[in-house]
Protein backbone atom coordinates (compact mmCIF):
# COMPACT_ATOMS: atom_id res chain seq x y z
CA UNK A 1 0.00 0.00 0.00
CA UNK A 2 1.48 3.33 -0.97
CA UNK A 3 1.51 6.29 1.40
CA UNK A 4 -0.51 8.54 -0.91
CA UNK A 5 -4.01 7.36 -1.78
CA UNK A 6 -4.98 7.16 -5.43
CA UNK A 7 -7.56 9.65 -6.58
CA UNK A 8 -10.23 8.19 -8.74
CA UNK A 9 -13.44 9.62 -10.11
CA UNK A 10 -15.46 8.25 -7.23
CA UNK A 11 -12.91 8.87 -4.50
CA UNK A 12 -14.41 11.06 -1.76
CA UNK A 13 -13.59 14.73 -2.11
CA UNK A 14 -11.81 15.09 1.21
CA UNK A 15 -11.61 18.27 3.17
CA UNK A 16 -8.29 18.74 4.97
CA UNK A 17 -8.29 21.36 7.64
CA UNK A 18 -5.13 23.44 7.81
CA UNK A 19 -3.35 23.64 11.15
CA UNK A 20 -3.66 27.23 12.35
CA UNK A 21 -0.44 29.19 12.90
CA UNK A 22 -1.74 29.89 16.42
CA UNK A 23 -2.46 26.25 17.36
CA UNK A 24 0.01 26.45 20.25
CA UNK A 25 -2.12 29.08 21.98
CA UNK A 26 -5.24 26.87 22.02
CA UNK A 27 -4.28 24.89 25.11
CA UNK A 28 -1.94 25.44 28.02
CA UNK A 29 -0.20 22.13 27.42
CA UNK A 30 0.47 23.13 23.79
CA UNK A 31 1.95 26.44 24.91
CA UNK A 32 4.09 24.67 27.50
CA UNK A 33 5.35 22.30 24.83
CA UNK A 34 6.33 25.08 22.41
CA UNK A 35 7.93 27.01 25.27
CA UNK A 36 10.00 23.92 26.10
CA UNK A 37 11.13 23.59 22.49
CA UNK A 38 12.09 27.27 22.13
CA UNK A 39 13.74 27.73 25.50
CA UNK A 40 16.11 24.83 24.96
CA UNK A 41 18.30 27.59 23.50
CA UNK A 42 18.84 28.82 27.06
CA UNK A 43 19.85 25.36 28.23
CA UNK A 44 22.42 25.36 25.44
CA UNK A 45 23.51 28.85 26.58
CA UNK A 46 24.14 27.51 30.09
CA UNK A 47 26.27 24.71 28.69
CA UNK A 48 28.29 27.14 26.57
CA UNK A 49 28.94 29.41 29.56
CA UNK A 50 30.10 26.36 31.49
CA UNK A 51 32.53 25.37 28.71
CA UNK A 52 33.74 28.93 28.57
CA UNK A 53 34.37 28.80 32.32
CA UNK A 54 36.42 25.60 31.93
CA UNK A 55 38.46 27.23 29.19
CA UNK A 56 39.14 30.28 31.39
CA UNK A 57 40.15 27.96 34.21
CA UNK A 58 42.78 26.23 32.06
CA UNK A 59 44.22 29.59 31.01
CA UNK A 60 45.30 30.52 34.51
CA UNK A 61 44.11 32.73 37.39
CA UNK A 62 44.18 35.99 35.41
CA UNK A 63 41.92 34.73 32.66
CA UNK A 64 39.58 33.29 35.29
CA UNK A 65 39.35 36.64 37.08
CA UNK A 66 38.51 38.27 33.79
CA UNK A 67 35.82 35.64 33.15
CA UNK A 68 34.26 36.26 36.57
CA UNK A 69 34.30 40.02 36.00
CA UNK A 70 32.52 39.56 32.69
CA UNK A 71 29.85 37.42 34.34
CA UNK A 72 28.91 40.25 36.72
CA UNK A 73 28.12 42.76 33.97
CA UNK A 74 24.41 43.70 33.89
CA UNK A 75 23.92 42.08 30.48
CA UNK A 76 25.21 38.72 31.71
CA UNK A 77 23.33 38.96 34.99
CA UNK A 78 20.08 39.53 33.08
CA UNK A 79 20.82 36.74 30.60
CA UNK A 80 21.81 34.39 33.39
CA UNK A 81 18.63 35.08 35.37
CA UNK A 82 16.43 34.37 32.36
CA UNK A 83 18.46 31.28 31.45
CA UNK A 84 18.31 30.01 35.03
CA UNK A 85 14.52 30.34 35.15
CA UNK A 86 14.14 28.41 31.90
CA UNK A 87 16.62 25.72 32.96
CA UNK A 88 14.55 25.34 36.13
CA UNK A 89 11.41 25.03 33.97
CA UNK A 90 13.13 22.32 31.91
CA UNK A 91 14.33 20.51 35.05
CA UNK A 92 10.84 20.46 36.58
CA UNK A 93 9.05 19.34 33.42
CA UNK A 94 11.74 16.68 32.97
CA UNK A 95 11.28 15.39 36.50
CA UNK A 96 7.52 15.30 36.01
CA UNK A 97 8.08 13.07 33.00
CA UNK A 98 10.10 10.43 34.87
CA UNK A 99 7.19 8.38 36.28
CA UNK A 100 5.84 8.06 32.72
CA UNK A 101 9.13 6.75 31.33
CA UNK A 102 10.16 4.59 34.29
CA UNK A 103 7.88 1.75 35.22
CA UNK A 104 9.26 0.24 38.40
CA UNK A 105 7.62 -2.90 39.69
CA UNK A 106 8.00 -3.93 43.31
CA UNK A 107 6.65 -7.31 44.41
CA UNK A 108 4.44 -7.57 41.34
CA UNK A 109 2.86 -4.14 41.84
CA UNK A 110 3.65 -0.97 39.95
CA UNK A 111 5.32 1.63 42.17
CA UNK A 112 2.99 4.69 42.23
CA UNK A 113 3.94 7.78 40.22
CA UNK A 114 4.15 10.10 43.22
CA UNK A 115 6.76 7.86 44.85
CA UNK A 116 9.02 7.81 41.78
CA UNK A 117 8.57 11.56 41.42
CA UNK A 118 9.26 12.09 45.12
CA UNK A 119 12.41 9.96 45.04
CA UNK A 120 13.69 11.88 42.02
CA UNK A 121 13.10 15.24 43.66
CA UNK A 122 14.69 13.95 46.88
CA UNK A 123 17.78 12.78 44.96
CA UNK A 124 17.94 16.19 43.28
CA UNK A 125 17.82 17.96 46.66
CA UNK A 126 20.45 15.69 48.22
CA UNK A 127 22.84 16.06 45.26
CA UNK A 128 22.32 19.84 45.12
CA UNK A 129 22.96 19.98 48.87
CA UNK A 130 26.15 17.95 48.49
CA UNK A 131 27.40 20.21 45.69
CA UNK A 132 26.52 23.33 47.71
CA UNK A 133 28.37 21.87 50.72
CA UNK A 134 31.54 21.27 48.68
CA UNK A 135 31.42 24.69 47.06
CA UNK A 136 30.50 26.79 50.08
CA UNK A 137 32.71 25.34 52.82
CA UNK A 138 35.62 27.57 53.69
Amino acid at each position, binding site marked *: *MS*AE*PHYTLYH*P*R*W*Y*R*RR*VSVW*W*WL*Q*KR*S*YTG*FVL*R*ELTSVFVAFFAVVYLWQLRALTQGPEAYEQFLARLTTPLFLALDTVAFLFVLFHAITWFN*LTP*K*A*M*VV*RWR*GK*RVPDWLILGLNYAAWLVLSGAVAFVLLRE
Partner: protein
Amino acid sequence: MPSSVALTVARYRPEMESEPTFQTYEFPFRKDWVVLDALNHVKDSLDGSLSFRWSCRMGVCGSCGMKVNGTPKLTCATFLSDYLPGPIRVEPLDYFPVVRDLVVDLTDFMRKLKQVKPWIIRKEEKAPGDGEYLQTPDQLDTYKQFSMCINCMLCYSACPIYGLEPSFIGPAAIALAQRYNMDSRDEGAAERLKILSEHDGIWQCTFVGECTKVCPKHVDPAGAIQQYKLTGATNWVKSLLLPWGAR
Protein backbone atom coordinates in the same frame (compact mmCIF):
# COMPACT_ATOMS: atom_id res chain seq x y z
CA MET B 1 -32.51 22.77 33.83
CA PRO B 2 -33.10 24.42 30.47
CA SER B 3 -36.09 23.29 28.41
CA SER B 4 -34.11 23.14 25.19
CA VAL B 5 -30.52 22.95 24.02
CA ALA B 6 -28.76 23.61 20.72
CA LEU B 7 -26.07 21.65 18.88
CA THR B 8 -23.88 23.51 16.43
CA VAL B 9 -22.67 20.81 14.08
CA ALA B 10 -19.96 21.02 11.41
CA ARG B 11 -21.40 20.15 8.01
CA TYR B 12 -19.36 19.28 4.95
CA ARG B 13 -21.18 18.14 1.83
CA PRO B 14 -18.53 17.75 -0.84
CA GLU B 15 -21.08 17.82 -3.66
CA MET B 16 -22.39 21.20 -2.46
CA GLU B 17 -19.56 23.06 -0.74
CA SER B 18 -15.79 23.22 -0.81
CA GLU B 19 -15.40 24.06 2.89
CA PRO B 20 -17.25 22.99 6.03
CA THR B 21 -20.02 25.17 7.41
CA PHE B 22 -21.91 25.05 10.69
CA GLN B 23 -25.57 24.25 11.20
CA THR B 24 -27.46 24.69 14.46
CA TYR B 25 -30.21 22.33 15.62
CA GLU B 26 -32.40 23.01 18.62
CA PHE B 27 -34.40 20.36 20.46
CA PRO B 28 -35.86 19.67 23.93
CA PHE B 29 -33.17 19.05 26.54
CA ARG B 30 -33.08 15.68 28.28
CA LYS B 31 -30.65 15.21 31.14
CA ASP B 32 -29.96 11.53 30.39
CA TRP B 33 -28.84 12.27 26.82
CA VAL B 34 -25.26 12.10 25.63
CA VAL B 35 -24.08 14.02 22.55
CA LEU B 36 -24.52 10.89 20.43
CA ASP B 37 -28.19 10.58 21.52
CA ALA B 38 -28.68 14.19 20.46
CA LEU B 39 -27.06 13.54 17.06
CA ASN B 40 -29.30 10.51 16.56
CA HIS B 41 -32.32 12.63 17.50
CA VAL B 42 -31.27 15.23 14.91
CA LYS B 43 -30.85 12.57 12.26
CA ASP B 44 -34.14 10.83 13.07
CA SER B 45 -36.37 13.88 13.55
CA LEU B 46 -34.77 17.07 12.24
CA ASP B 47 -32.31 16.46 9.41
CA GLY B 48 -31.81 13.02 7.90
CA SER B 49 -28.87 14.21 5.80
CA LEU B 50 -26.48 14.55 8.78
CA SER B 51 -23.68 11.95 8.63
CA PHE B 52 -21.69 10.59 11.55
CA ARG B 53 -20.24 7.26 12.67
CA TRP B 54 -21.35 5.29 15.68
CA SER B 55 -22.02 1.73 16.70
CA CYS B 56 -22.04 0.40 20.27
CA ARG B 57 -23.19 3.45 22.35
CA MET B 58 -21.14 2.17 25.31
CA GLY B 59 -17.53 3.21 24.88
CA VAL B 60 -16.30 -0.06 23.41
CA CYS B 61 -16.29 0.26 19.63
CA GLY B 62 -14.42 3.56 19.32
CA SER B 63 -16.48 4.79 16.33
CA CYS B 64 -18.10 7.94 17.68
CA GLY B 65 -15.02 10.06 18.40
CA MET B 66 -15.66 13.73 17.59
CA LYS B 67 -14.60 17.13 18.89
CA VAL B 68 -17.07 18.48 21.45
CA ASN B 69 -16.49 22.15 22.25
CA GLY B 70 -12.96 21.79 20.89
CA THR B 71 -11.91 18.67 22.85
CA PRO B 72 -11.75 15.18 21.32
CA LYS B 73 -14.40 13.03 23.02
CA LEU B 74 -16.30 9.79 22.63
CA THR B 75 -19.74 11.29 22.03
CA CYS B 76 -21.43 8.25 23.58
CA ALA B 77 -19.83 9.12 26.92
CA THR B 78 -20.22 12.90 26.81
CA PHE B 79 -23.36 14.18 28.53
CA LEU B 80 -25.18 17.23 27.25
CA SER B 81 -25.69 18.32 30.86
CA ASP B 82 -21.93 18.93 31.22
CA TYR B 83 -22.04 21.57 28.49
CA LEU B 84 -25.02 23.68 29.49
CA PRO B 85 -26.35 26.15 28.54
CA GLY B 86 -24.88 25.49 25.10
CA PRO B 87 -24.89 25.75 22.16
CA ILE B 88 -22.62 22.69 22.03
CA ARG B 89 -20.18 22.65 19.15
CA VAL B 90 -19.62 19.27 17.47
CA GLU B 91 -16.86 18.91 14.87
CA PRO B 92 -15.02 16.03 13.18
CA LEU B 93 -11.70 14.89 14.68
CA ASP B 94 -8.73 17.07 13.79
CA TYR B 95 -5.89 16.12 11.40
CA PHE B 96 -7.83 13.42 9.52
CA PRO B 97 -9.35 14.22 6.13
CA VAL B 98 -13.10 14.82 6.40
CA VAL B 99 -15.19 12.60 4.13
CA ARG B 100 -18.56 14.13 5.01
CA ASP B 101 -19.98 16.12 7.96
CA LEU B 102 -18.52 14.38 11.05
CA VAL B 103 -17.03 11.37 9.25
CA VAL B 104 -13.24 11.25 8.86
CA ASP B 105 -11.02 8.90 6.87
CA LEU B 106 -8.81 6.65 9.02
CA THR B 107 -6.79 4.93 6.27
CA ASP B 108 -3.58 6.60 7.45
CA PHE B 109 -3.89 5.07 10.93
CA MET B 110 -4.81 1.63 9.58
CA ARG B 111 -1.64 1.63 7.48
CA LYS B 112 0.52 2.70 10.44
CA LEU B 113 -1.09 0.18 12.77
CA LYS B 114 -0.13 -2.63 10.39
CA GLN B 115 3.46 -1.37 10.23
CA VAL B 116 4.04 -1.86 13.96
CA LYS B 117 2.95 -5.53 13.71
CA PRO B 118 0.36 -5.60 16.48
CA TRP B 119 0.23 -9.36 16.87
CA ILE B 120 2.21 -12.00 18.75
CA ILE B 121 5.40 -12.84 16.88
CA ARG B 122 7.16 -16.12 17.73
CA LYS B 123 10.56 -17.21 16.48
CA GLU B 124 9.14 -20.71 16.32
CA GLU B 125 5.45 -21.41 16.51
CA LYS B 126 4.29 -24.17 18.80
CA ALA B 127 2.15 -26.84 17.21
CA PRO B 128 -1.48 -26.50 18.38
CA GLY B 129 -1.22 -29.92 20.04
CA ASP B 130 1.62 -28.70 22.30
CA GLY B 131 -0.71 -26.43 24.25
CA GLU B 132 -1.08 -22.73 24.92
CA TYR B 133 1.54 -20.10 25.65
CA LEU B 134 1.06 -19.70 29.39
CA GLN B 135 1.12 -16.38 31.20
CA THR B 136 0.85 -15.41 34.88
CA PRO B 137 -1.52 -12.64 36.08
CA ASP B 138 1.55 -10.49 36.87
CA GLN B 139 2.83 -10.88 33.31
CA LEU B 140 -0.61 -9.93 31.99
CA ASP B 141 -0.61 -6.89 34.25
CA THR B 142 2.53 -5.40 32.62
CA TYR B 143 0.76 -4.73 29.29
CA LYS B 144 -2.96 -4.94 30.06
CA GLN B 145 -3.38 -1.17 30.22
CA PHE B 146 -2.10 -0.75 26.65
CA SER B 147 -4.37 -3.52 25.39
CA MET B 148 -7.44 -1.48 26.34
CA CYS B 149 -7.05 0.75 23.25
CA ILE B 150 -10.20 0.87 21.10
CA ASN B 151 -8.65 2.75 18.13
CA CYS B 152 -10.99 5.72 18.63
CA MET B 153 -8.35 8.17 17.34
CA LEU B 154 -8.97 10.77 20.04
CA CYS B 155 -5.24 10.70 20.81
CA TYR B 156 -4.28 11.49 17.20
CA SER B 157 -6.73 14.36 17.17
CA ALA B 158 -5.18 15.74 20.38
CA CYS B 159 -1.58 15.40 19.18
CA PRO B 160 -0.20 18.59 17.59
CA ILE B 161 2.84 16.63 16.38
CA TYR B 162 0.59 14.44 14.25
CA GLY B 163 -1.02 17.59 12.87
CA LEU B 164 2.33 19.13 11.96
CA GLU B 165 4.12 15.93 10.90
CA PRO B 166 1.52 13.59 9.39
CA SER B 167 4.18 10.90 8.90
CA PHE B 168 4.47 10.43 12.70
CA ILE B 169 3.33 6.90 13.59
CA GLY B 170 1.32 8.36 16.45
CA PRO B 171 0.19 7.59 19.99
CA ALA B 172 -2.22 4.66 19.61
CA ALA B 173 -0.03 2.69 17.18
CA ILE B 174 3.00 3.03 19.47
CA ALA B 175 0.96 2.09 22.55
CA LEU B 176 -0.27 -1.00 20.71
CA ALA B 177 3.27 -1.88 19.64
CA GLN B 178 4.28 -1.61 23.27
CA ARG B 179 1.32 -3.81 24.23
CA TYR B 180 2.92 -6.65 22.23
CA ASN B 181 6.53 -5.79 23.14
CA MET B 182 5.69 -6.21 26.82
CA ASP B 183 3.71 -9.40 26.34
CA SER B 184 5.71 -12.31 27.79
CA ARG B 185 4.55 -14.56 24.90
CA ASP B 186 5.91 -12.23 22.22
CA GLU B 187 9.37 -12.42 20.63
CA GLY B 188 9.01 -9.67 18.03
CA ALA B 189 10.44 -6.65 19.88
CA ALA B 190 13.49 -6.46 17.59
CA GLU B 191 11.27 -6.39 14.48
CA ARG B 192 9.17 -3.56 15.90
CA LEU B 193 12.27 -1.64 17.03
CA LYS B 194 13.14 -0.98 13.38
CA ILE B 195 9.97 0.93 12.64
CA LEU B 196 9.54 2.48 16.09
CA SER B 197 13.03 3.92 16.44
CA GLU B 198 13.05 5.44 12.95
CA HIS B 199 12.54 9.15 12.32
CA ASP B 200 8.75 8.86 12.22
CA GLY B 201 8.62 6.70 15.34
CA ILE B 202 9.01 7.55 18.99
CA TRP B 203 11.54 10.37 18.53
CA GLN B 204 8.99 12.60 16.83
CA CYS B 205 7.12 12.72 20.14
CA THR B 206 8.14 15.64 22.33
CA PHE B 207 5.79 14.76 25.16
CA VAL B 208 2.93 17.18 24.92
CA GLY B 209 0.95 14.65 26.96
CA GLU B 210 -2.49 15.52 25.54
CA CYS B 211 -2.96 12.00 24.09
CA THR B 212 -3.06 10.56 27.60
CA LYS B 213 -5.43 13.26 28.82
CA VAL B 214 -8.07 12.61 26.13
CA CYS B 215 -7.84 8.79 26.15
CA PRO B 216 -11.26 7.41 27.23
CA LYS B 217 -9.78 4.01 28.17
CA HIS B 218 -6.82 5.24 30.30
CA VAL B 219 -4.30 3.61 27.98
CA ASP B 220 -1.67 6.33 28.60
CA PRO B 221 -0.06 6.40 25.14
CA ALA B 222 2.31 9.19 26.25
CA GLY B 223 3.62 6.81 28.92
CA ALA B 224 4.05 4.02 26.37
CA ILE B 225 6.09 6.31 24.10
CA GLN B 226 8.33 7.61 26.89
CA GLN B 227 8.94 4.04 28.11
CA TYR B 228 9.82 2.98 24.62
CA LYS B 229 12.24 5.92 24.30
CA LEU B 230 14.07 4.48 27.31
CA THR B 231 14.15 1.04 25.63
CA GLY B 232 15.26 2.56 22.32
CA ALA B 233 18.03 4.60 23.93
CA THR B 234 19.26 1.61 26.00
CA ASN B 235 19.39 -0.52 22.85
CA TRP B 236 21.32 2.17 21.03
CA VAL B 237 23.90 2.49 23.83
CA LYS B 238 24.21 -1.30 23.97
CA SER B 239 24.77 -1.51 20.22
CA LEU B 240 27.46 1.16 20.59
CA LEU B 241 29.27 -0.47 23.51
CA LEU B 242 28.78 -4.07 22.46
CA PRO B 243 29.31 -4.00 18.72
CA TRP B 244 29.16 -7.75 18.31
CA GLY B 245 25.44 -8.11 18.25
CA ALA B 246 25.00 -8.67 21.98
CA ARG B 247 21.63 -6.90 21.89
